[in-house]
């Protein structure tokens, strides 16, 4: 068999859908592999043999691929070329089903997988899973209008998605000033004029125009439909905001996760922001209904997904799963919990914040590099 290619979307299907028997061979160097790798609930076999080892010691490296010749191998590299290079070597050595990832790990890093969360009440609500970042953005479509929540920089995806559904993007809602990925809201505004809605506590230094939301403010589509209510939930950042859709769904940003909560120490003011978060949990979040479906901005692990492989859960269930956090009754104890779980944040977060506020302009290639890799936003690392 000749060497073939595959796309990030195929990989997503294989690692999340029906169980597929294949070995993922990552040929990036050990350091890059250690920093960021493909994850998925059904990814059972992954090996890392850097391509430079195939260049220097071909026979020895081929011998390290301990996969039967009739079994499938899917190769990943940084951009595409090295995976193709190694793929040719494997085909030459008799493997029959070898494919390389088109456009490399960055295409995996940017890929968004749309999942329908709700329909039937006259609107459609989608979760867009970004498996490379372990993050989720959301889309709400009513008639010919679409609102997007926390778009990532793969803005072409959202525009195409809107087009395919006969809608156009009218607004983007930011749950906070993101530190772990580059927001697509500004690009969407440039491309289609969709207004950015955000809280001034996070965006007051922003160099671009945005609609400064007020706590409890309600946003509507032109022709009615589901209401979107902003709920200011400071803590992860001072401007953190959740968006309540149709009183049933909560775009929770980095405030409530399925496991853990958003860490309040990323801004360098762990004590103050922890107190803000404690207050938010005890007032705003405590006042929300158990039946509310939480739609988080991140997940830590695939084990958090529901049987349909969506990252949603009811607030009641989340309170149970995280009883250790929600059960903390005292502010001082909460601050201690946060501090005990603190860990270093990636170096690029400070720069990403500046890019998202329009305070730093970087070219596309540098954005790509900055934006790649899994998030570090949860207050506790469950199971680690």
């Amino acid at each position, binding site marked *: 068999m000749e060497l073939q290619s595959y796309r990030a979307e195929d990989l997503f299907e294989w690692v999340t859908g029906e169980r597929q028997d294949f070995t993922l061979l990552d040929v990036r*160097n*050990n*350091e*890059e592999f250690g920093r960021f790798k493909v994850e998925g609930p059904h990814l059972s076999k992954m090996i890392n043999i*850097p*391509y*430079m*080892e195939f*260049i*220097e*010691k071909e026979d020895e490296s081929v011998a390290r691929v301990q996969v039967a010749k009739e079994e499938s191998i899917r190769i990943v*590299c*940084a*951009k595409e*070329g*090295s995976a193709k*290079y190694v793929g040719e070597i494997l085909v030459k050595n008799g493997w029959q089903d070898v494919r390389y990832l088109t456009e490399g790990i960055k295409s995996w890093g940017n890929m968004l997988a749309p999942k329908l969360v709700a329909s039937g009440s006259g609107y459609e609500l989608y979760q867009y899973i970004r498996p490379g970042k372990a993050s989720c953005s959301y889309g709400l479509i009513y008639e010919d209008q679409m609102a997007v929540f926390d778009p990532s920089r793969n803005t072409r995806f959202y525009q195409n998605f809107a087009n395919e559904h006969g809608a156009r993007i009218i607004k983007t809602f930011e749950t906070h000033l993101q530190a772990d990925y580059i927001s697509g809201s500004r690009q969407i505004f440039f491309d289609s004029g969709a207004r950015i809605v955000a809280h001034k506590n996070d965006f007051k230094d922003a160099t671009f125009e945005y609609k400064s939301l007020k706590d409890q403010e309600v946003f509507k589509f032109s022709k009615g439909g589901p209401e979107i209510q902003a709920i200011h939930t400071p803590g992860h950042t001072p401007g953190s905001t959740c968006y309540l859709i149709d009183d049933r769904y909560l775009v929770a940003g980095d405030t409530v996760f399925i496991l853990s909560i958003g860490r309040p120490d990323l801004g360098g003011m762990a004590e103050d922001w922890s107190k803000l978060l404690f207050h938010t949990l005890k007032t705003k979040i405590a006042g929300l209904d158990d039946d509310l479906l939480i739609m988080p901005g991140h997940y830590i692990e695939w084990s958090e997904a529901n049987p349909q492989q969506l990252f949603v859960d009811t607030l009641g269930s989340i309170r149970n799963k995280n009883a250790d956090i929600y059960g903390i009754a005292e502010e001082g104890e909460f601050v201690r919990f946060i501090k005990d779980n603190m860990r270093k944040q990636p170096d690029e977060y400070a720069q990403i914040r500046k890019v998202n506020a329009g305070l730093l302009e970087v070219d596309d*290639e540098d954005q790509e*590099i900055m934006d790649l890799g899994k998030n570090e936003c949860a207050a506790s690392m469950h199971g680690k």
Partner: protein
Amino acid sequence: MSDEISVAKVMDLKGLACPMPVVKVSKGIKEVQVGEVIQAVTSDPGALSDFPAWARTSGNEIIKTETEGKETTFYIKRLA
């Protein structure tokens, strides 16, 4: 300072994407004597971590790295 390093061979690898910079430097280093240094100029951002990884694998030594804008110049001493 680059002028203090005596370079036996210069390789212009600008514009090449992986795996080609490593493929070429792997061949190029074998064309100088053990102990001699080659200078390789790259523009692929991947080279920044791939060249050190290659040097470890091949048993050669990067004695100096200079980055200027998008270009990185490696001085690699043949040891193996």
